């Protein structure tokens, strides 16, 4: 039998490839500090993948590296080693591995880590990004959409709602870089986002709408904090959006054929 390309690990590798522009610019501007943080996240995440492989015969996935990258980039600063290790362990294990590994999880493990750290240690400051790093999100989204590992519908949906909000006069300049980075790192994850066509449009639109709402109404929130919270809520809502899209599809089909 012939075999095609798009098994789980290929998708993970293409996702990693898509995120490279973002990761490399971030490493370039972040220097040694960023590199060390990334190595730490990689080691902790890899360790848990190994443990689950040995204990539960669960094959490790390159998706662990995506999680590590997202955590290293987005985690609050000045947490100290122990808290960071605790956060990554919690996110990787409770967000992904206990469900059976990447592909069966409900929420992106990096989102779980960041929500855990953000809500657990609210005094820690959220990192800021220099503008060139944020520009890196655009080629990342482009590569992801062209290879099909990120949903073009989701990305477009988010973009359209953002444009609409800006056209209506919302001042989003401060939050846009962080929101863009979170969009490609966390929201566009094919597993944790919606999987139907309509659901993906709604998923992207919902994320952008939440970002806009948090920016305008949430006093004192850091841009990244608003974006991560929006990502968490949007990915929790993804199954509902899928359900709605499928229900609509079934209703249309029933109207056309009288049966499903």
């Amino acid at each position, binding site marked *: 039998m012939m075999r*095609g*390309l798009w098994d789980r690990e290929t998708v993970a590798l293409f996702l990693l490839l898509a995120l490279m522009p973002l990761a490399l610019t971030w490493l370039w501007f972040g220097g040694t500090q960023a590199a060390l943080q990334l190595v730490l996240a990689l080691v902790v995440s890899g360790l848990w993948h190994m443990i689950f492989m040995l204990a539960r015969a669960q*094959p490790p996935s390159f998706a662990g590296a995506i999680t590590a990258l997202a955590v290293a980039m987005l985690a609050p600063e000045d947490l100290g080693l122990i808290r960071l290790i605790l956060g990554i362990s919690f996110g990787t294990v409770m967000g992904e591995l206990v469900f059976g590994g990447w592909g069966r999880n409900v929420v992106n493990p990096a989102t779980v880590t960041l929500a855990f750290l953000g809500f657990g240690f609210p005094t820690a400051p959220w990192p800021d990004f220099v503008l060139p790093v944020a520009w890196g999100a655009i080629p990342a989204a482009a590569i992801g959409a062209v290879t099909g590992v990120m949903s073009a519908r989701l990305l477009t949906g988010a973009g359209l709602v953002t444009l609409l909000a800006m056209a209506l006069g919302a001042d989003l300049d401060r939050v846009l870089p962080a929101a863009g980075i979170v969009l490609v790192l966390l929201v566009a994850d094919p597993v944790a986002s919606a999987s139907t066509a309509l659901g993906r449009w709604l998923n992207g639109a919902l994320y952008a709408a939440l970002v806009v709402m948090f920016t305008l109404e949430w006093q004192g929130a850091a841009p990244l904090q608003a974006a991560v919270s929006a990502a968490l809520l949007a990915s929790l809502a993804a199954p509902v959006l899928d359900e709605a*899209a499928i229900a609509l599809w079934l209703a249309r089909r029933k109207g056309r054929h009288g*049966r499903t």
Partner: protein
Amino acid sequence: MLGGRLGTGLHVATGAQPRGGGEPVRRMTEEAAVFCRPEGDLRVDDVTPEDTLVAQGAPVARLREHPDIALVAPMAGRVARVVLRPGRRLAEIVLFREAGGDRHRHDVGGSAATEAGVRRLMQSAGLWPRLQRRPFGRLPPSDERPAAIVAMAADTRPMAPDPRMALRGREEDLARGLSALAGLTDGPVLLCQQAGPSLVENGLADGRVMIVTTGPRHPQGLAGLRIHDLCPAGIDAPVWEVHAEDAADLGALLVTGLLPETRLVSVAGAAMNETLLLRCQPGADMRGLSHGHVRPGPHVLMAGSPLDGREARWLGPRERQVTVNPQARAASRHWFQSALTRSSTQVPVIPTAALEQSVGGAFPAAAMIRALASGDDETAMKLGVLSLLEDDLALTDYVIGGAPRLSTLLRRMLDRIETEYAA
């Protein structure tokens, strides 16, 4: 929606295009067989004994449950070997060709005019096994009236022969065959063809024969996805599928009483020196078809396309494609690599654009795969699983790298639904 236009179908590169404009060559193999796959269950009676001379189109066996339905000799020849499994279940009836043999003339006698006449003729002349019934993909019962009949004059599987070429010069036969098929159903007869001039006049048989245009890319020309889209099959609403060439054979049979001898078949694959377009008998010996054109070295013969083919010796009653691939050697794997890649449970499928395109955007692919993998029959039926058969998910299996094998999961689910709901 734009996404619907862009997001359907893939090109799968699988080998050389036919040489020399691809005019088909007539090649009858020395051996041919009437057979039943091991997983099939065909009990037969009245089997012609070994060493009997039979004419082309003459019955060689009858089904025990439906004695009207005959299996006929694909060519004039001598019955060489009859293999029956316990319970008179058919394994194979092998024939050796006899040069200058006869053709069996079926009694037409005005049968084109009545539904019963068409049914009787199709059943006695061996055209019935060329029908496929959805749901479940079995032979239709002899007295069933389907909700619709879909005739496929499009085939987008990689290296499949072009049905338009098979039907060249046979437009009248096709129109007559489709009109006759319209008598067997109260619903529409849909002729799926690719863009281009219409194969038959739209609206034959009081407007019940309709032409549907399908896209040029795989899987847009798969019968299952077309049925899913146009007239979904249900437990109480069976849909029959027939190849347009077989419909044209019916048209010819109605006039002459002779079953056409050959069909257009392509022989292709990575182990072939060139792609062949042949006209051969049904049930042809695939070794005979590929002989002399295979590259040196071990190879496997598969009936069907590179995506959905299965290893076999004979071409089936509905198959029009032979794939010859080099034999893959089983690689020995290091235990650590197995630990890294193989799991106790099956690796999940990631919903990407490739997955969506592999089902042509016909249904929510991720939801369907989840229902298949978890054995959720009800959700799968809502999503239209009853219109599908293994072939329709072959491209998806290819795209996601074959783990888990969705066609296996689908067959298991269909069998379960058949015993639970349709008993």
